[in-house]
């Protein structure tokens, strides 16, 4: 079974729209980290956020916000007032204490297209 599921393969929005990228994870570990990475067309993976399993507080960073809910095993990512530069593939990832947090499980990614 997949440990990280990103059900949305591709999303298209018009600039200034809000968009939420979904991430559902599966783990038996009680201690784990969740991540979001951005991969623009250049190919480099850019780290966006890390959240540990004991911290369910939502986080906001500029136009980005993250909603972590252990009850639904979800770690969703919202971009407010999207911009063309947000166009990229976004990956959610999980690491677990049982692997010393070294093995990252990546979701299949969501391609976001922001049109002007």
């Amino acid at each position, binding site marked *: 079974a997949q440990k990280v599921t990103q059900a949305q393969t591709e999303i298209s929005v018009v600039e200034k729209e809000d968009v939420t990228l979904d991430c559902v994870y599966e783990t038996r570990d009680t201690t784990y*980290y969740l*991540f979001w*990475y951005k991969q623009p067309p*250049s*190919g*480099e*993976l*850019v*780290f966006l956020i*890390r959240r540990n399993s004991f911290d369910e507080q939502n986080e906001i960073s500029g136009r980005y916000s993250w909603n972590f809910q252990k009850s639904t095993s979800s770690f969703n990512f919202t971009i407010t007032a999207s911009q063309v530069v947000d166009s990229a593939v976004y*990956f959610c990832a999980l*690491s677990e204490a049982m692997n010393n*947090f*070294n*093995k*990252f499980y*990546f*979701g*299949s*990614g969501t391609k976001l297209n922001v049109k002007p």
Partner: protein
Amino acid sequence: SAVISQKPSRDICQRGTSLTIQCQVDSQVTMMFWYRQQPGQSLTLIATANQGSEATYESGFVIDKFPISRPNLTFSTLTVSNMSPEDSSIYLCSVDGTGLQTQYFGPGTRLLVL
């Protein structure tokens, strides 16, 4: 976060040949990781490389096909051996943000095998 560079950034190779990819970090790190990203796919961990020991390979990846070196705390190489078109991928190295349990990635090497 660490600054990571990879060489080459891209290459086109003939089947049956080998390519060595270099990964350089601007600070000493304990662990380095090599990933493969096939076209339109997610990232798959190939192996974990610790300095001074043999790399640990994930299921489906073998040392004969993907030999890895880790001669010091700032450098690693991945060789893709006896290449076939199925090896066409982006190969990325990453390092752990020591003490932060976070991986930071290099810019990747885009490989096309003809």
